[in-house]
């Protein structure tokens, strides 16, 4: 590490920071791009179809349809950039950025591997070092900001479908955030802190076992927060055309879509960190650093796949069902979980 950083005439700290920024920025971005492929091919397999396989790399290699990603990217870049005449131009341009920036920020606090010491330095594998004072509150807050991107997009488009989608998305996020907060609060309580490193360190037994109701609540809320099926009301195709991105095309649409997948990656990372022990491997107290990163990556990819898997299993809810589930099921369940954990702690368990 030190020889590498001295090669670049840097002290280890900034060098390590740059490396981490690259990993944290490009890693989820790449994963999100791959997820669009996994979603299309995976859904095809689930529905006994074949999926996109016509795009060829250099006209020769099919590569299981992966060149479709490049083809889509090129297409998005080259398409005409259309802004509706009655749209609010500035906001219309700003909205994809407002959706994208929080989406890439969310991953910053999540540890993707075990911290290790080398040459007198302690290296942490998360962009924000532990003890930064924000801890797991940070991704929650950033996740809450994400709704503004969707709201701005829908409002500035000046389109009734978009407005409906944005409104649905906003009310859905607000109502599910409460239950999500309760589920996370139970974890904070059991851990005695809200730093992700602390939370992971405290998971000798993965949180999913002692806090199963909390896990149910949290993962359900993650589906709602990321606007994924069965809760994708922001863009219910059969009801409101394409919801908040009805008027979006070309690269702006791609940004909105990409930020949705980034949210998905962040949500999966949150589930892994909070309930599945982050980088921990059962039976291995101190796994080698690379192995811990691999463990985290495997869990992350698995939960990303679960998001896709569930999407192609369950049909969409009705909006009143969504609200019913959010306020009358998830909220009491989250409260009950909180009380249960509090009772267990009081009882000394």
């Amino acid at each position, binding site marked *: 590490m030190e020889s590498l950083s001295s090669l670049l005439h840097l002290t280890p700290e900034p060098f390590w920071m740059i490396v981490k920024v690259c990993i944290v920025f490009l890693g989820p971005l790449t994963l999100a791009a791959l997820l669009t492929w996994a979603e299309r091919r995976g859904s095809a397999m689930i529905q006994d179809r074949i999926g996109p396989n016509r795009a060829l790399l250099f006209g020769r290699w099919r590569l299981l349809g992966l060149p479709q990603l490049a083809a889509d990217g090129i297409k998005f870049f080259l398409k005409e950039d259309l802004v509706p005449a009655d749209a609010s131009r500035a906001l219309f341009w700003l909205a994809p950025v407002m959706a994208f920036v929080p989406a890439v920020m969310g991953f910053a606090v999540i540890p993707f591997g075990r911290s290790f010491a080398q040459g007198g330095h302690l290296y942490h594998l998360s962009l924000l070092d532990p003890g930064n004072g924000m801890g797991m509150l940070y991704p929650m807050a950033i996740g809450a900001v994400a709704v503004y991107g969707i709201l701005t997009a829908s409002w500035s488009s000046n389109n009734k479908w978009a407005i409906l989608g944005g409104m649905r998305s906003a009310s859905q996020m607000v109502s599910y955030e409460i239950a999500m907060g309760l589920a996370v609060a139970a974890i904070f309580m059991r851990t005695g802190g809200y730093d992700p490193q602390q939370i992971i360190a405290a998971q000798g037994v993965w949180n999913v076992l002692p806090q199963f109701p909390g896990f149910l609540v949290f993962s359900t809320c993650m589906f709602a927060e990321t606007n994924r099926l069965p809760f994708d009301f922001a863009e219910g195709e059969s009801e409101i055309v394409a919801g908040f991105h009805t008027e979006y095309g070309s690269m702006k649409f791609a940004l909105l879509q990409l930020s949705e997948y980034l949210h998905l990656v962040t949500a999966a990372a949150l589930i892994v960190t909070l309930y599945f022990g982050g980088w921990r491997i059962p039976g291995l107290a101190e796994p080698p650093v690379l192995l811990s990163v691999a463990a985290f990556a495997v869990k992350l990819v698995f939960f990303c796949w679960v998001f896709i*898997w569930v999407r*192609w299993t369950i049909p969409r809810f009705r909006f009143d069902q969504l609200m019913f589930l959010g306020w009358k099921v998830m909220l009491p369940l989250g409260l009950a979980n909180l009380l249960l954990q509090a009772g267990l702690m009081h009882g000394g368990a």
Partner: protein
Amino acid sequence: MAVLVKKVELNWLDRTYVWPVLMGMVITMRHFIRQITTRSSRRFTIPYPDRKRATAPGYRGLHELKRFQDGSIKCVACFMCAEACPARCITIEAEEYGDINKTQGFEEKRPSVFKIDMLRCIYCAMCEEACPKDAIWLRTDYEQASYDRLAMKFGKWDLMNTYADQDGKPRITVDPTPAVPRPPVEG
């Protein structure tokens, strides 16, 4: 008539919603694994331009005008097909021809023009049914497309050669016997 809607009573396990979702996920995963482990040639979807589906026996595809071994057309220009055609897409002009050749024996007529407008044809195979000489067949080819309407009017030689390559027959563009009226029999 009123339709009786049967109310389904869900048991407590189903009412949790979690269990049915998990069961559903098992089903989708089963499909996923089955599809991903099936070879491409055995999947339901046929990747069409790469692989073509074999047509069923009795399939009514592109027409062929049959010929004898020496290349003379089997059609005797009797107009039965043109009469039978519900789409009225067959145009025939008959001609007499000169020598009596070995395959057609004493036949004296054949089409000089045999046109089928493929844009009008409905592939009903009525012509095939009507033909007394078994001279027109509807066979397996189903890929007819062209850049202009005129190319969809198939003439006699187009129709005689539609399956020539497929059957390994030579493509022919002339009748083996010339179309010369027989000289009147003297005395």
